[in-house]
């Protein structure tokens, strides 16, 4: 059994969001980088659990990014995984990134490919579906549970107002969300071991960018809160009804 987990580097959840170069580039100044939480807490940790259950599982991690992504992929290796692959390319186009992952995955003949449900920077929710289509594999999105019995995966997927149970034979692409696993903190042994785990750098395959960012902006600031005294709840309800007209 071979598992591939897609890892993305994202700004920390508390990072200040600002732009430079006439609002065309994200301002990296002073930004702390982390493993995209959905990739780390849910996709990677579930893959590690599967390997813990069955030590014959081979677990690889992949990221598409420049050399500055290496501390992030090492941090992921500190949690678990046998080796990592970095595709040496920089792009924010989902199709381009998915094409790189698909090219590596095709050669690696993985049985299970995990992504997080989305990255917290571009919020595209796209990589998993695109990789699946490029490899002609089934895809279960926004899965909150995954169990394996032989080569059959049983998953729980979110639907409007409930959940659905899916059964799929491997190989399979899954995007993971809350519920799939619990966040782990890397221990010292993991951090030491990660230093010597192989990190392969491969050059990108030829692929197109289908989209481009022409500019960023910040949402208009709120006009300011209208405070209602605590002894006049009726006034708040009146404002919501007559002024905001929300019910």
């Amino acid at each position, binding site marked *: 059994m071979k598992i591939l987990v897609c890892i993305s580097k994202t700004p920390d959840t508390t990072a200040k969001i600002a732009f430079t170069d006439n609002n065309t580039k994200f301002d990296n100044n002073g930004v702390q980088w982390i493993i995209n939480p959905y990739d780390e807490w849910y996709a990677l940790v579930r893959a590690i659990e599967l390997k813990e259950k069955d030590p014959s599982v081979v677990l690889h991690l992949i990221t598409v990014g420049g050399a500055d992504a290496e501390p992030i992929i090492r941090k992921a290796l500190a949690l678990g995984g046998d080796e990592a692959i970095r595709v040496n390319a920089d792009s924010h186009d989902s199709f381009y990134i998915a094409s790189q992952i698909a090219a590596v995955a095709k050669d690696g003949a993985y049985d299970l490919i995990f992504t997080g449900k989305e990255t917290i920077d571009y919020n595209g929710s796209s990589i998993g579906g695109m990789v699946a289509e490029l490899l*002609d594999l089934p895809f279960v999105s926004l899965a909150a549970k995954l169990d394996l019995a032989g080569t059959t995966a049983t998953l729980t997927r979110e639907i409007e107002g409930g959940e659905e149970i899916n059964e799929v034979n491997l190989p399979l692409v899954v995007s993971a969300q809350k519920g799939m696993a619990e966040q782990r903190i890397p221990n010292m042994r993991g951090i030491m071991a990660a230093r010597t785990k192989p990190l392969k750098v491969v050059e990108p395959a030829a692929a197109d960018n289908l989209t481009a960012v022409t500019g960023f902006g910040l949402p208009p600031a709120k006009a300011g809160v209208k405070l209602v005294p605590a002894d006049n709840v009726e006034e708040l309800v009146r404002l*919501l009804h007559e002024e905001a007209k929300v019910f």
Partner: protein
Amino acid sequence: MSVLIFADIAEGQVKKSSLEALSYGSKVAAQLGTTAEAVVLGDNAGDLASLGKYGVKKVHHVSSSTLDNFDAQVYTKVIAEVALSAGADVIVLSNNLNGKAIAPRLSARLKAGLVSGAVALPDTASGFVVRKNVFSGKAYANISVSTPVKIISLNSNAYPVTEGEGTAEVVPANVTVDAPKVKVTGSTKASGEVSLTEAEIVVSAGRGLKGPENWGMVEDLAHVLHAATACSRPVADADWRPHHEHVGQTGFAIAPNLYVAIGISGAIQHLAGVNRSKVIVVINKDPEAPFFKAADYGIVGDAFEIVPKMTEAIKKIKG
């Protein structure tokens, strides 16, 4: 040339998020001087001619009981075939749960640039540029799509359902439907509750409520507002409330018309999941709670006194 909108159905009805997509797609078609058409998959589809109300002229209906079992791979192939035969150059989907599975597959299959989670109509003055939220709603990006076919998945609650007059022509679409590889073997629906991601009003509470036994008043308020209930991350982590109620950066991102936050301080990670709400009301005893900065209305005070009073006042108005 046309705009093709995928209308997602559940239990014989087009989902509200797809009605928004139909309204949006029809507007895009008008903007481009072309016609809007819809594609509907599955047997139990209801009255499709009535989708004309939302501006579509034609509905391609792929009727097959196989499609009652959702498999994104099968759906993608069917929609792609209909898009090709209809000569669609723009495909619109809702960025809802099924949309998130189909849109990226469709993009890769058709080599068509995808803007996922669009929040505004495309700017077609020069090129094709669509705005979407990025950094979990803390910013937006304008995305230019240069491919011949363009795909937009529309965030829920980002465009209003617009109803007019009209009847659509329903045409059966003759496409091969593959056997699904993903088999749906069961489903559970939280009955009687309002779905969190589709709700127009959400009532949410946090650690300020002190314990799970105090949620009755939150549920009462939600009930009179016909709202969904939600909670902050610490509350879900403490198992006071189920995880599927957790809104925030790592839980669900929602965009209701009204978000009522009770006893939630408003950490940046929580705001990232709710900052697309149209109106935010914050009830907190701490006047320094950061949430007040993001709120439209607020009350500084004791939630245990304020919330039941709110419920009563709303009951009076609603009669």
